[in-house]
C-alpha cells in the first residue's frame, strides 16, 4: 500500500511539531510527540494501523530510550526516525500484523540512516532561525516598545514555522511519498562503509561534546574547576556511578563547600543576618 498525499501531509505536520526546537514546544512536542512510542501511535492512526504502529514504535523506542541532547546538541534526530522511519517500515511490510516484528527491525535499521539525515535537517532549521532572530534583534535595537511587543512573539512563535516547512515538512512529505525507492537509492549511493556515511556517524558521536562544552562554558570559570569536573567524570567513567549517584555525591561536597564558604563570610560580616538564608539551599538544588 502507498502513502497518500493527505497521510504524507499529516506526517509532515507532526514532524514539525515533534522536532527538538519543535513547534509543539519542548514538553508536548519533543518529549511527547517526538518519542518513537508515542509517534508509533500517531503514525499508526494516520496510516490506519495502530497496532503495527505501536509495535514498531516500541522497538525503536528501545534503541533510543535514554537519548539525551546535552546543551541542545542533536546527534540522532529521533523525530525523523519516528515520522519517516516508522511509516516507511509499515509501508514496506504491509498491514500484516504478524510481520510487525520484522517491520520493527527494518524501522530500527532504517532509523539509523534517517536519523542521520534528520540531524542535517535539524541544523538547517536552527540556522534558518538565525534570520528570524535577526529581525528580533533589529526590533530590540530600534527601542520602540510597540514594535518590540509585536515582533518578539512573532519571532518566537510564528516565523520558525517557515524554517520547519523548509527543513521538516517538505523533506518528510517527499521521502514518505517517494518511499522505498528513496531508501534503496540512499543505500546505493551512500553505503555505510563509504566515507560520507562514516563521517556523518562520526560527527554524530562527536556532537554531544559541543553540548557538554557549552555547559562547561557556563560553569567553569577558573582552571581548578576542571578538577571538580574531573571528579564527576571519574565517578561515572571509572567508578561506574550513574547520574543520580553522581548528583548525590556532588550535593554532599557542595554542602561541605557551603559550610566552609559560610564560615568565611560570617567571619567577615559577623552576627546579624548570619542565619537568614541558611535554609534556602535545599530547594535551589
Amino acid at each position: 500500500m502507498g502513502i497518500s498525499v493527505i497521510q504524507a501531509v499529516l506526517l509532515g505536520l507532526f514532524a514539525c511539531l515533534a522536532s527538538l526546537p519543535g513547534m509543539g514546544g519542548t514538553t508536548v512536542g519533543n518529549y511527547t510527540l517526538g518519542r518513537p512510542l508515542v509517534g508509533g501511535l500517531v503514525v499508526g492512526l494516520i496510516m490506519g494501523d495502530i497496532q503495527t504502529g505501536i509495535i514498531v514504535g516500541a522497538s525503536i523506542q528501545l534503541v533510543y530510550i535514554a537519548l539525551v541532547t546535552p546543551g541542545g546538541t542533536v546527534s540522532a534526530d529521533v523525530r525523523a526516525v519516528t515520522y519517516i522511519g516508522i511509516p516507511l517500515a509499515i509501508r514496506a511490510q504491509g498491514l500484516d500484523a504478524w510481520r510487525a516484528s520484522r517491520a520493527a527491525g527494518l524501522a530500527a535499521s532504517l532509523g539509523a540512516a534517517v536519523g542521520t539525515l534528520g540531524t542535517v535537517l535539524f541544523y538547517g532549521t536552527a540556522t534558518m532561525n538565525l534570520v528570524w532572530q535577526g529581525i528580533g534583534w533589529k526590533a530590540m535595537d530600534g527601542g520602540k516598545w510597540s514594535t518590540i511587543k509585536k515582533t518578539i512573539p512573532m519571532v518566537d512563535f510564528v516565523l520558525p514555522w517557515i524554517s520547519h516547512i523548509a527543513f521538516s515538512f517538505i523533506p518528510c512529505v517527499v521521502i514518505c511519498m517517494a518511499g522505498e525507492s528513496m531508501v534503496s537509492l540512499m543505500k546505493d549511493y551512500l553505503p555505510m562503509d563509504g566515507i560520507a556515511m562514516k563521517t556523518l556517524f562520526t560527527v554524530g558521536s562527536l556532537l554531544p561534546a559541543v553540548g557538554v562544552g557549552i555547559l562547561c562554558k557556563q560553569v567553569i570559570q577558573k582552571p581548578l574547576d576542571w578538577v571538580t569536573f574531573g571528579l564527576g567524570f571519574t565517578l561515572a567513567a571509572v567508578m561506574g556511578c550513574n547520574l543520580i549517584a553522581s548528583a548525590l555525591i556532588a550535593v554532599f561536597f557542595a554542602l561541605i563547600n557551603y559550610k566552609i564558604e559560610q564560615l568565611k563570610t560570617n567571619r567577615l560580616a559577623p552576627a546579624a543576618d548570619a542565619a537568614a538564608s541558611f535554609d534556602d539551599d535545599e530547594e535551589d538544588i
Partner: protein
Amino acid sequence: MAELKKVSKKARNSAFRNWIYGNLTCFSQEHMQTFGYLAAMLPVVDELYDNDDDKVKALSTYRTFFNTEPQIGTMVVGLTVGLEEARANGEPLDDDTINGIRAGLMGPLAGLGDSIIVGTFIPILLGIALGLSTGGNVLGPLFYVVVWNLAMYFGMKFAFKQGYELGGSAVEALVGPQSAALRSSIVMVGTMVIGSVAATWINITTALEVPFSADSSLVLQDTLDSIFPKLLNFFFVWFCWWLMTKRKMSPTLVMGLLVIVALVGVLVGFFNPGLSY
C-alpha cells in the same frame, strides 16, 4: 508613598505559558533559548513599567544568552519575574546582578535537569509504557502521554511559583554576601554532574590499530583506556570548551570544525563507526 507594584496573576500566567511553550521554538545554536526568555518576560515588563523607555530598558536585560534544561529552567524564569518586580519597586538590582544569577543557575540546572528529568524520569516512564504496550496495546503510549504531561505541567508550575516567591521575598539572600556561598555550591554540583554527563552520554572511540609485526598490533583504544577510561570524551569536551572560550568561536563554527575533524579522522582510519544497513 506609592503603592508597591505587583505582577498580576494574569501576567505571570502568560509569562509561564510563553516560556513552557516557546522556550525552544526559535532555537539557534547562537542564541538557544534567549528568544523564549524574551517572550516570557515581555508581558511582565509590559505590566510593571509605565513608560516605554523603561520597558525597553528592562527587557534588554534578558538579551543575554540563555540556555538550560528548559523544563527545570522554568524556575529561573519565575525567579527573574520576582526580581523584575523587586526592581520595579526600586530595589537596587542592576542588569549584571540579574544576569549573574541567571548565568550562575543555568549551567547547574542544565546538568541536573538533563540527568534527572531527561536521563532518568523519561526512561523510567518509557520503560513502564513499553511494558504496557506489548502486542501493540494503546495503553502504553497513552500512559506516557498522560503521566508525562501532567507531571511536567504541575512540576513546571511549581518550579515557576517557587522561583517567583524566592525572587520577590529573598532578593537579599541572592545578592547579599551569603549568596556567594550558595551560588558557588550550586555551581559546584552542576560542574560535577556535567562531568558525569560527559562520561555517560558521549561515546567517542577510536578504531586505530598500529601493527607491530605480522601477528601483533597495538589497539589504540585499549591503550587509551588503560591510561584513563573514556579519555577521548574528556579531550573532546575540553577541546570544544577551549575553542568556545579561549578562541571565542561560536558553537556553529565549532560544529563545522568537528565535521572536518571527523572527515580527516575517517580518512586516516582513526574513526570508524563500523555500521551497516
